[in-house]
């Protein structure tokens, strides 16, 4: 096991690169991941998965003749296989000011989101899938092909991102629809503190035929803000100031947080989106593996595509 990443380790540094390489290998061992790389389409084509058999007709590819069936039934049957195409992975990254929140010991939420995005991209690039990136805030929009070269371009785009400005998930979702060039899987990496905007974005993506994963990146402070009694807090994006009561603020916040989480989960479930919680302090490769285990990037997750 390699040394743990520090909060300020660069995305293009050796530590991250090592984890991305290992992540690519680990992904191939996963049962779900072994079948990934190509995805079956509804078109009949030249893939490997047989979906039916039919009687041979002149002109059919002799390699598709099912010789085992000929031995049993003395009839020439050919295997009908689905066409296979590379996966389209969209990464919708929230680069608003709220994502710049971090501590001395943990990376910022944006750093964590970039690392997770890199991990997912590494897995996808290893399988020659296409990857597109767009930012809900300041940042580039680009689409790269699979392979190491494409991954390198993507990491180069992710590395200099900084958190600033307001969140614009819905607008970014509209841009993603054109950028991805077809239906695919879109992973929204955000703190989702604009739940209406996030659900609107997910709804728009679902409407365009994409599968959506809402990866919610939060810090431990946002999950449990200890010692906030009597504090005055300032919103990183809007500048709004709120003054908390001198006592009982934590309990009331936790209750509100739980209600908020439940509402968000319900909204995601209603849209058919997968909600993936991510802690900013969690190792990103573990997050990616957990995502893969939950079917992200798998054939099953793309079944609807």
């Amino acid at each position, binding site marked *: 096991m390699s040394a743990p990443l520090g909060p300020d380790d660069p995305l293009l540094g050796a530590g991250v690169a090592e984890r991305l390489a290992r992540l690519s290998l680990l992904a191939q061992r996963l049962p779900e991941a072994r079948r990934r790389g190509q995805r079956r389409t509804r078109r009949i084509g030249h893939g490997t998965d047989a979906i039916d058999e039919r009687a041979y007709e002149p002109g059919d590819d002799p390699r598709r003749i099912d010789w085992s069936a000929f031995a049993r039934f003395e009839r020439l049957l050919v295997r009908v296989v689905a066409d296979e195409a590379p996966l389209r992975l969209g990464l919708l990254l929230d680069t608003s000011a709220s994502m710049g929140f971090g501590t001395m010991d943990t990376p910022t939420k944006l750093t964590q989101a970039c690392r997770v995005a890199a991990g997912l991209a590494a897995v996808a690039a290893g399988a020659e899938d296409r990857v597109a990136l767009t930012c809900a805030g300041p940042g580039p929009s680009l689409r790269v092909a699979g392979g190491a070269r494409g991954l390198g371009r993507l990491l180069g785009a992710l590395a200099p991102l900084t958190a600033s400005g307001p969140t614009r998930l819905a607008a970014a979702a509209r841009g993603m629809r054109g950028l991805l060039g077809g239906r695919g899987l879109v992973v929204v990496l955000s703190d989702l503190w604009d739940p209406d905007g996030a659900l609107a974005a997910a709804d728009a993506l679902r409407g365009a035929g994409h599968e959506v994963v809402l990866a919610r990146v939060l810090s431990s402070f946002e999950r449990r803000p200890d010692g906030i009694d009597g504090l005055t807090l300032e919103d*990183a994006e809007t500048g709004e100031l709120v003054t908390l009561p001198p006592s009982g603020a934590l309990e009331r916040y936790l209750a509100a947080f739980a209600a908020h989480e439940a509402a968000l989960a319900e909204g995601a479930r209603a849209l058919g989106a997968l909600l993936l919680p991510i802690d900013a302090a969690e190792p990103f490769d573990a997050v990616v593996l957990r995502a893969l285990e939950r079917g992200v990037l798998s054939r099953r997750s793309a079944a609807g595509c």
Partner: protein
Amino acid sequence: MLMRPWLVVGLALLVPILIAFLYRTQDRVASVPSTLLFRQIALVRARTRRLRDLLSRLAFFACLAGVAALVLAAAEPRGIDDPRTIVIVADVSASMGGATERELRDQVQRLLRTTNGRDMVALVAAGARPRVLSGPSGDATALADAARALTAERGEADLGAALRLADALLDGAYRPRIWLVSDGGRPIHDETLALAAPLRVLRVGADRDNVGVAVLAARAPLDAASDEEREVLATVVASGGRARHVSLVLEADGVELARRSLEVPGGASVEATFRLRVAARELAARVTPTDGGADALPSDDVARLALGAARAQRAVLVAPEAHPAAFFAERALRAAGIAAITRYAPADAPRALDEGAIAVVVGAAPAHRIGGPTLFLDARTGAIPVAIGAPLGAGATALRSIDRAHTLARGVELDGATIARATPVELGPRDEAIVELDGGTVLAAGGAGGDRWVFLGVDPTGSDLVLRVAFPVLVANAVAALSGAADERVAETLPRDESALAASAALASAPPLREPFPWPVGLPFALAGLAAVVLSLEGLAYLRGYAR
């Protein structure tokens, strides 16, 4: 007055507040990714930090103001609501009559209401003789009663004397004030310059029109055919700047004798004369506007004049026994219409006469003064109201002059009269010389009312005067003069300027009185109340978390 020692100590209380504020401005604000959930549990929300800081500063300054007001209130400052000593001078001249009188009363009462309970107020009526009606005191009831009793007089107002009286009342008073309520009808000239107390003038009854009788007089004309004949003079005055058309009616004992239509220029007067040939006890001149214009003062619309009493009917003849002139004097008195003649020796002469009687002293006057109008004929000794000169003999008795315009000389013809001896008199400054010889005055008149006298110094035994027609005519004239029937009489009317509503330039240019704000409570109490309100709001804001 504000710098009481412990006030400074109180102000020092503001220092910890300032420190607290400065410490609060260092308030630690933690940045969070989103206040979405914190908003639900927040006490206070502010859209931005700038707005929060603005509210915080406002709360701070409100707190400072509240504490400062509290400290000032505790110091019991004396200022705008300190007790004042006020003298309200109410002009009660004749021009303040009519509707202006009510306006005056209302205005004075309104001024009284603007004073607070601690003010000392006096009310001075500025008439011909200014007088204090009430105060200085804080007795609002007495002052209000005095204000309600204000009545315009028939004369002029001596505003200068009234202001000096007010100033004297304010001598040594704290925060003295003089408020003059007037129509500006009388000039005050420079009196105000010498006042120690500040004077403010409130005009009432401005922009009025008035017509009135300024003068009504009657006298016996020089060419009178009878004793009852009178020449009557009436003067009508109009105020304002436009001509007025009026009707002037002359009445005698209630009977209309004459009516004139007059045009009176604005701010000027017009005279009208009448010849009265009937006996009357009272004359009245009544003026009425005929142009539909206003007539502000009803008190000057009618002037009444009581004419002199009828010629005396009784006489007391005081003469030594067998005085040669007594006979002629008695005959002349009877010719003058005296029906009852009582003769006395000088020593027995009465000291006082009955009403309507005159005395005629011939030769020697009694040692005592006779109380009543008296005709002295060649009286050289006794109580005579005029100094007797040295007897005149030949060479000093030629007639030098005669005042034919005088009523005593009316019809008296002395040309050709022989006067060999006479006794002159030395006149006082108010005595009248009617006939003068080369040696001195021999016919003179003087005195007034019941002390009137006529002196004839011609010696009847040394002159042919008593044999001439001039003598009974002269005696008749003297009887008429002593009876007062021939006097020029003038009715008591409003002063001309009062009827004309003449405005004083000084008052007209004076700034109008601005009524003071009726502070309901004292300044310390008001400051304490203000502090209580502000600090209560501040405390509430802190409790609710609005101010931090």
